[in-house]
């Protein structure tokens, strides 16, 4: 993976010093909260309901065991022994004191990490394919480009006060695992018919209140131009993006208002002055950065493991784990292992300090000391010898990291929800827990098969509700009760689609039954081996809707769970500001 040189280290160290002084000025009241807010936000520090939350950047989701151990240390020393991995491949700590943050950043800098631009109206952490470099379907390794763009966007002087946040994702495989079509800029790097490397550039995708699939602005952008072209896009956005209404400030609204043809014309006019200029990427720099992403020292080993087959036949849980959590690797004898952070009873994406240490040990012992964080809030060991799988599984099981549910119903995405976030209309984590408990039966989950269930506490869609096969969204109602809208048919990847809302919203206690009914329709209607999403696409939303609303569901208004989302009682310091 990428290692800092003296320049990277110097910039991060100077950031720690700059931030330390900003905190000092805030604590001594030289800086008003209104002035400090955007500064701390550009450093990932949000004010939540109970405490500050600190979001740390994990560039394109890749981290070393040493860095993960530092997270465990931070969890123990400055938080409550746990951290929360996010859908943007970062980690968040929820119980942070402002006074501690400069020291936390200094700790992070010592392991080549930071919290730069993990929030605020700037270019955020670049995300990528969690299987980059090891996926069998990869055409071009996206990681060197993601790192080059990380450096380009870090403290970009012109783009620190954009109309709104700006997210870029890069994918280099046939299957898009980075959800590039729902990003402000989505990059797909590939080789054209002449063997030249370039990018298909999407712009204006996004989730939130107005979920939109991105439009193609360039079919093939030669790799040398990636930085200057993005600069042109962001410059147009910085000047013309709306600033009068926070809900209409993302680039997707600008692209929609202008139309992709006109937007492209403006971008290319801006780009004409930059193209082939000093911002053009050089072979030398690409080679330099790529040198950090070469394949590890794989052994020449057999792909055949009879002991695996025999252990599998004796142990059903292991067999399930092998089937769900172990993915094909492009090198014979190796496998990709997903460590599940979706244990029933635990908030999706949460890991304790002990689990982080255990995962770091697993990485050192079995996977060249590296891990990845997935957008589905799990951890990945990308280079595991098949002969190590049994031992690894035993240790992972002992540490609660081996729930065999990757891609299944309980592998839910969930935002923190109204217990933490001042924006949320409703709780997410308790709902995720209730759903996980109701469908805890693994055979049933296997029967349902591949499905994405995503939960967000509000329209802002941090939990990717609009692209969930089943999406659940906390909605605002006049009574300030907890109500959830259910949508159907959303999906990410190569065939991205936005889910359709099935009808009137449900109470907290009704949601598990609604999901049950949706699954019943699927089981009734599915053709052999048809995935949930494919059945929805084939028969449409109507049969699901009819069945869900056919009879009354217990737990309606009269039995509403009593929980008052904090946004109705806390002041303005919402995490978005």
């Amino acid at each position: 993976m990428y290692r800092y040189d003296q320049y990277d280290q110097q910039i991060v160290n100077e950031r720690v010093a700059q931030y330390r002084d900003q905190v000092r000025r805030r604590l001594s009241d030289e800086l008003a909260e209104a002035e400090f807010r955007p500064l701390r936000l550009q450093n990932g520090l949000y004010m939540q309901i109970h405490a500050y939350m600190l979001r740390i950047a994990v560039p394109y989701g890749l981290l070393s065991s040493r860095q993960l151990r530092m997270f465990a240390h931070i969890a123990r020393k400055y938080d409550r022994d746990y951290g929360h991995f996010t859908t943007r491949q970062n980690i968040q700590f929820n119980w942070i004191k402002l006074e501690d943050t400069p020291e936390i950043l200094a700790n992070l800098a010592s392991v080549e990490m930071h919290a730069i631009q993990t929030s605020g109206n700037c270019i955020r952490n670049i995300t990528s394919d969690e299987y980059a470099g090891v996926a069998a379907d990869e055409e071009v390794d996206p990681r060197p480009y993601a790192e080059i763009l990380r450096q380009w966007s870090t403290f970009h002087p012109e783009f620190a006060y954009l109309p709104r946040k700006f997210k870029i994702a890069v994918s280099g495989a046939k299957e898009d695992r980075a959800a590039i079509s729902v990003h402000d800029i989505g990059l797909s790097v590939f080789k054209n018919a002449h063997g030249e490397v370039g990018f298909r550039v999407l712009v204006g995708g996004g989730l939130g209140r107005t979920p939109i699939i991105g439009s193609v602005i360039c079919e093939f952008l030669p790799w040398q131009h990636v930085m200057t072209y993005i600069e042109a896009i962001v410059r147009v956005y910085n000047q013309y993006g709306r600033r009068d209404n926070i809900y209409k400030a993302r680039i997707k609204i600008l692209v929609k208002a202008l139309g992709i043809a006109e937007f492209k014309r403006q971008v290319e006019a801006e780009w004409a002055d930059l193209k082939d200029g000093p911002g053009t990427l050089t072979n030398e720099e690409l080679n330099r950065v790529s040198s950090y992403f070469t394949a590890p020292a794989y052994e020449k080993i057999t792909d055949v493991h009879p002991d695996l087959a025999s252990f599998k036949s004796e142990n059903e849980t292991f067999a399930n784990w092998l089937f769900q959590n172990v993915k094909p690797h492009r090198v014979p004898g190796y496998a990709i292992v997903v460590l599940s952070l979706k244990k029933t009873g635990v908030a999706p994406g949460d890991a304790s300090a002990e689990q982080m240490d255990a995962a770091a040990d697993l990485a050192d012992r079995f996977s060249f000391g590296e891990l990845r964080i997935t957008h589905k809030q799990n951890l990945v060991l990308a280079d595991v010898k098949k002969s190590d799988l049994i031992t690894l599984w035993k240790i992972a099981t002992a540490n609660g990291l081996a729930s065999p549910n990757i891609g299944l119903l309980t592998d839910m995405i969930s935002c923190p929800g109204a217990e933490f976030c001042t924006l949320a209309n409703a709780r997410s984590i308790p709902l995720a827990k209730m759903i996980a408990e109701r469908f805890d039966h693994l055979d049933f989950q296997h029967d349902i098969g591949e499905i994405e269930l995503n939960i967000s506490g509000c329209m802002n869609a941090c939990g990717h509700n609009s692209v969930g096969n089943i999406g659940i969204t906390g909605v605002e109602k006049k009574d300030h009760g907890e109500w959830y809208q259910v949508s159907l048919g959303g999906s990410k990847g190569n065939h991205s689609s936005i889910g359709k809302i099935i009808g009137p919203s449900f109470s907290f206690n009704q949601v598990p039954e609604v999901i049950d009914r949706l699954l019943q329709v699927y089981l009734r209607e599915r053709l052999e081996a048809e995935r949930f999403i494919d059945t929805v696409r084939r028969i449409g939303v109507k049969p699901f809707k009819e069945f869900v609303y056919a009879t009354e569901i217990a737990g309606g208004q009269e039995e509403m769970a009593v929980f008052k989302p904090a946004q109705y009682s806390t002041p303005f310091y919402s995490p978005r500001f």
Partner: protein
Amino acid sequence: MIIKNKAIVNDDWTVLRLAENEAPENVTVPAGKVIVPLKVWFAQREKLQDRDDLGVWFASDERPETLKDDISKFTVIAVDFPKFGDGRGYSIAYNLRARFGYVGELRAIGDVLRDQMFYMQRVGFDAFAPRPDRDIQDALKGLNDFSEVYQASIDQKTPLFRRVQRNENTSADL
């Protein structure tokens, strides 16, 4: 007092701002060194064009290309930041320098604070009028937050990767 070329200097320019009941066409531009709103310049160009003691300032929603043909007339151009979170001024400054070749004083006015000045300096501002309620000595420190930068902009035309020899990965195990 303003900050110019990294030093605190006396300022003999006045910034003219329109009151609510004033129109660009008929506001009186006082004698002496005045930085007028872009709208006033366009509305009274005939009358003002022979003055050599005039500067012009951009509101954040005004476009640098509209001044393209007049740019060489000015030795001072200012860009107003109505709120420090309104980042349009950064692109206005960049384009004034990079696309339209402006080489005179480029001054940040309005909600100008220490913690944004490093960025402002990078996109071409060489003069700053920090908010009057702030200590100008303190604001000056903001220009030195970083000693190295990755990307090209106006102050540094060459990105880091073209300027210095950077390390390749030399470790054998990764």
